[in-house]
């Protein structure tokens, strides 16, 4: 009975929320913006050092957001490995994975690595960039892991922590170096902008892949007897 009542209430809430949102979108859609940001962006794109406007926003105009966002990723990684058990890396199930997957990943892994490299390289001019490349890299790592490759560097140790923080540290160093050289935090010298952005993107790719992989492997694996103990 209470369940039905709860469903009804939630339905009503969601419906009210939906109608408010739709009304709001409709109202806003009918007006014009007082600020034309895309035009402003196009006007400043040349100073950003890259041609892809999204990359320009991410790594130059709003680079502070990106810096913090990598911070969020690192936090997630830290929090993940802090609750993980070291033993979780020894997953017997994965060791005995089937041959098909193994064969598959022999082909897939190099391919994904290649794709990651391409995405990273393309990022400054065309669609692509560190996040996509990092994600693809992580995906290939996941594949390797599913194939039973132990990947010892993911053990919670100094290596892992170095890897987690590498991209973030380089980004941060660039930021503070710009501040120390007399201009604002995160302001790149225009002539070096492109180089710096590409460098940052490269290390970011590695770190992003590292964090995502670390989170993937740090999830604890159940023991066989576990389901009974808390099972309904």
């Amino acid at each position: 009975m209470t369940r039905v009542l709860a469903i009804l209430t939630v339905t009503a809430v969601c419906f009210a929320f939906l109608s408010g949102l739709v009304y709001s979108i409709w109202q806003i859609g009918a007006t014009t913006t007082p600020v034309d940001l895309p035009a402003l962006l196009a006007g400043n794109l040349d100073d950003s050092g890259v041609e892809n406007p999204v990359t320009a926003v991410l790594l130059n105009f709003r680079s502070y957001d990106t810096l913090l966002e990598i911070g969020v990723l690192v936090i997630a990684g830290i929090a993940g490995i802090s609750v993980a058990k070291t033993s979780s890396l020894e997953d017997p199930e994965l060791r005995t994975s089937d041959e098909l997957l193994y064969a598959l990943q022999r082909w897939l892994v190099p391919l994904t690595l290649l794709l990651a490299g391409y995405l990273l390289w393309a990022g400054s001019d065309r669609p692509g960039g560190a996040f996509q490349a990092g994600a693809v890299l992580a995906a290939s790592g996941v594949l390797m892991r599913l194939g039973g490759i132990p990947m010892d560097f993911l053990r919670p140790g100094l290596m892992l922590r170095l890897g987690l923080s590498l991209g973030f540290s380089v980004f941060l160093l660039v930021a503070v170096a710009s501040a120390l050289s007399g201009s604002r935090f995160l302001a790149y010298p225009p002539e070096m902008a492109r180089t710096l952005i590409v460098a940052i993107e490269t290390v970011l790719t590695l770190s992003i892949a590292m964090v995502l992989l670390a989170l993937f492997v740090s999830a604890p694996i159940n023991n066989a007897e576990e389901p009974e103990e808390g099972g309904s």
Partner: protein
Amino acid sequence: MTLWLMAGLLFTPLAWAVLTLLTGFRRGRAITWLGIVIQVLVSLALWAVVAAEGGFQYPLGGWQAPLGIELRMDGLAVTFVLLTALVAAASGLHAGFYLDPDKDWHRYFWPLFWFLWAGLNVVWLGNDLFNLYVGLELISLAAVGLVALGGQSEALRAAIRYLMAALLGSLAYLLGVALFYGQFGSLSLSGIASALNQDIAVEGSGFALILMFFGLALKTALFPMHRWLPPAHGIARSPVSALLSALVVKGSFYIAARLWLELGATLGSLALAQLLGVLGGMAVFWGGWQAFRHSKLKQVVAYSSVAQIGYLFLLFPLTWNTTEAVIIQAQQAMTLQVISHALAKAAMFLSAGNLILSVGSNRLNALAGVSHFLPFSLFSFGLAGVSLMGLPPTGGFAAKWLFLQASLATGQWWWLVVLLGGGLLSAAYVFRVYRASFVEDSDIDHFFHPSRRLEIIPMILALLSLGLGLMAEPVLSVMALAFANGEGT
């Protein structure tokens, strides 16, 4: 000089997060203490700069808003930066002694601590709606990580519940940001505020504001969305609880207050203002009542946070559609309440941690007889309690007094019930703790004595919150710089 200070403020916490990530607990502790010194000095220097020269904008990467992200360093922001530095320094020092260095996972306390600090500074200085979102996420994930640290089942349960609430809150806020961007084509808060003066159709944005308030209120644990807070703050280690209660919940509230003060006059409504106030009032009573009923020390303190947060929301009805003088009064009241609660609650959690360490139990009636053996921590707890009760000369009293003045001046006498009744209710739960500690019928005399270093830190915080009432005028005069030339300068 200012540029260097700003760079230091932004850089240190992030850099120290990385440094401490790479080291173990003990070395991390040493590094952290160095960092704390730097951060406190930088914050003090910035405070002095702002007090002397007024606030300024800091365009990151050299890009002006709306293209880039600008930080706003005004009186209010710098006051909160300084407050954060004080409370975080105290919690960090306390944690260094309090946490067991031999537990492997405690090494991760330091990087999370520094990320949390960084996120808080992002929020205080933020003037860009999306940047604030990222700041909020930084804070939430770091806080969740800290709660889950060491991961026992109950802690994980609390952490997951906290994470879910935080994520929902962030999304609601982000949806509001999306609508705002659609409406104004800009993410800069002051840009939006000045666009509002141009008399454009803004009918759709009212809902956006409501969404943002919902999200932020959820993250601030406003009644009735407070259910995640007591388990999380109650189960975390005491220095973590201190950080969470003193600072983290204030971050989201601060954003809501900034939004309201800049945009509320146009986009808000009487109903919204009163609703937030009423929820705040209910939080005061419900939180106080729950604190009174709970039999565990840290739960009492955690529920008291729910109650104290309620007072903050009186800001909304008291600044709606009224004179400039009253608005300033209400703002000052809110600011004082934030500061005094932060100091008092941090003191309370830290001394509660000492008490628990000493009697080996979280239960209230285990405190019997502790007043012989640990009067120092008990005294800090008591002083902090005085501030929560809103008795003079504490900062809590100054805040309550200003709230009273603003309520009477706007004729909204019904908030008096909240202010006076809430004070009595908080007295009820604080005195319950005192009472438990005065009981003489226990024969336990083998209390563990925590080190003096652990005891002195909460005492300093409690004294600060006490002294705030006497020093309110000078502190507020720096904060007033925010409101005099708050935007666009």
